[in-house]
């Protein structure tokens, strides 16, 4: 369970101050998939970075399983599985070694890491490249390895920043299926996307962000009701106020 309250973050860039995140509050519940939807540059990545304690918020609070991220960053990171926007692998290590490295950094012992790796590799369909070096992996193989490495410690909460970016149709389908399995296991899944269809296909709850603010949130049905539109796509366009950047 992730609770975000009044999050703010600005950056100084060439003398000007840019408000990347401006009073963002939402909740991502266990056993649900929550989608953070917004055009490029809306502040999704910055919001997620504050969730996994890479950045300190200027104001506001992040609670993960009721633990304050500002006070107990290490414990919060332990409860999160994170697939950041940057998902580089170590090219001279095999996929398995990449995963094992992260398992050890989470303090797991080697036998546990081994069994978890096998399970994730089976669930994500990684058998044929698990023991190959990451040099020359396809985008899909890279993303699968990055996801496995993010989940090796069996976290209750899963954050994914634009997980389907650059993936082909088949890989995207299997990834969606995998996220539904995570939900079925009772985990809290929060992912960001700028692709409306993606969010509509997966999410139980949707948080729409534009220009650093939450402009709407709720279940797809609630969003349709709020805007009075039958079509979810029209509803998004209405709350964001423009069609810009919403379609891939």
């Amino acid at each position: 369970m992730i609770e975000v309250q009044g999050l703010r973050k600005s950056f100084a860039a060439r003398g000007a101050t840019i408000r990347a995140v401006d009073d963002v509050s939402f909740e991502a519940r266990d056993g649900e998939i929550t989608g953070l939807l917004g055009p490029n540059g809306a502040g999704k990545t910055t919001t997620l970075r504050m969730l996994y304690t890479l950045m300190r918020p200027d104001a506001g609070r992040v609670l993960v399983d009721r633990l304050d991220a500002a006070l107990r960053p290490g414990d919060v990171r332990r409860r999160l599985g994170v697939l950041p926007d940057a998902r580089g692998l170590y090219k001279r290590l095999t996929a398995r070694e990449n995963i094992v490295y992260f398992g050890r950094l989470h303090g797991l012992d080697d036998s546990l890491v081994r069994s978890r790796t096998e399970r994730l590799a089976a669930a994500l369909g990684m058998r044929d490249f698990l023991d190959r070096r990451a040099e020359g992996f396809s985008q899909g193989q890279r993303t699968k390895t990055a996801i496995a490495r993010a989940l090796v410690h069996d976290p209750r909460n899963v954050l994914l920043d634009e997980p389907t970016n650059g993936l082909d149709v088949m890989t995207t389908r299997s990834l969606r299926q995998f996220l539904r399995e995570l939900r079925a296991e009772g985990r809290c899944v929060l992912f960001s996307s700028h692709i409306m269809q993606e969010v509509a296909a997966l999410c139980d709850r949707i948080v729409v962000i534009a220009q650093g603010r939450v402009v709407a949130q709720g279940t797809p049905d609630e969003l349709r009701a709020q805007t009075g539109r039958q079509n979810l796509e029209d509803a998004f366009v209405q709350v964001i106020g423009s069609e810009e950047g919403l379609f891939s």
Partner: protein
Amino acid sequence: MSAWWTVLRKELVDAFRDRRMVVVALLVMPLVVPLILAGMSALGTSRQAEKLEGTLELPVIGAEHAPNLVAWLRTNDVRVVAGPDDPDAVVRRQEREVILRIDPRFAADWRSGRPAGVELVFDSSRPLQSGATVARLRALLAGYDRQVGTLRLIARGIHPSVAQPLQVADRDVAAPESRFDLAQQMLPYLLLLLSFIGGMQLAVDATAGERERQSLEPLLATPASREAIISGKILATAAFTLLSVLVTLLMYRVVFAVVPSGRMDASLAVPFDALLRLVVVVLPVVLLGATVLTALAAFARSHREAQGYLPLLIFLPMLPTLYLMVAPVKTQPWMLAVPFLGQNQLILRILRDEPIGAGEWLLNLGAGLALVALAWWLAARLYHREQLAASG
């Protein structure tokens, strides 16, 4: 298992799979450093011997004015050839190291007992090339001068010691091991340089490279503390550098064992226990280098920027060597606490087989490790900066 140990092991595995890095650090550098030193030493020794013992070909202008002097030079292994018309230009063009010009009035002055003039034409800005030859010729002329002067005094019934109020004798107290040549002066510098920046490749790859490959952000999202992560990276860099230094020293030992000892300065052949002491001396430098490199690479935005600091870092270990060259001062105790300067002095003393007291060891190692701790603290602080990972 602690996080720093996990990071350390992973970085070393990663580094050893980078064939280029391994070849450079564990094969090329360990071969290049001893070969440079061996080459310099062998070349220096043989050239020196050639200049002092071989036949000296000497252009003489006006040889006809002083046939006795020329004959005397010939008996002292000098081959006299005709001098050029413009000796200054010839010397300046480095066609000759030294030219002897005999004054046209030489014969007249000689006969009337006045000091007869000879002139040495040489270029003092090239002491390395012509210094030994000039000195040899000077000694020959001084010998002739003394010999003839003594004969003249005897001819006048005066004891030659009258004109010799002083008798100066040289007594060199240096042990044979401490004969100092250029190769020996280079060894501390090359050793310190290798220790300091030998891990450049790994350090840059592990921080700036990690960011460029976009693997830093997921790494920082794990519960491992940033101190643990950076410590693992620093220690991996240090371990790799230390290995490179060890291999270099062993290769050095091998090279100097293989090359016939007569061909070069024996003082460069270092016994095994001295090699071990050298490793202890450079250890703080290895750690300091690993820390500074990691901090710089964390500070730099890219591989390229990190490598831009390289010339600066190469210069740093050179400073004390340069300082000692221009101001060869007496060793003061405080110098042992100065980074690079202290190590430089200890390396020289180990090479000269001079004893080093426990207090001196303590001062040097203590100061070195204190500096490492300070650098580590700075590096860890740099690693906490928000911009570090969030560059995307």
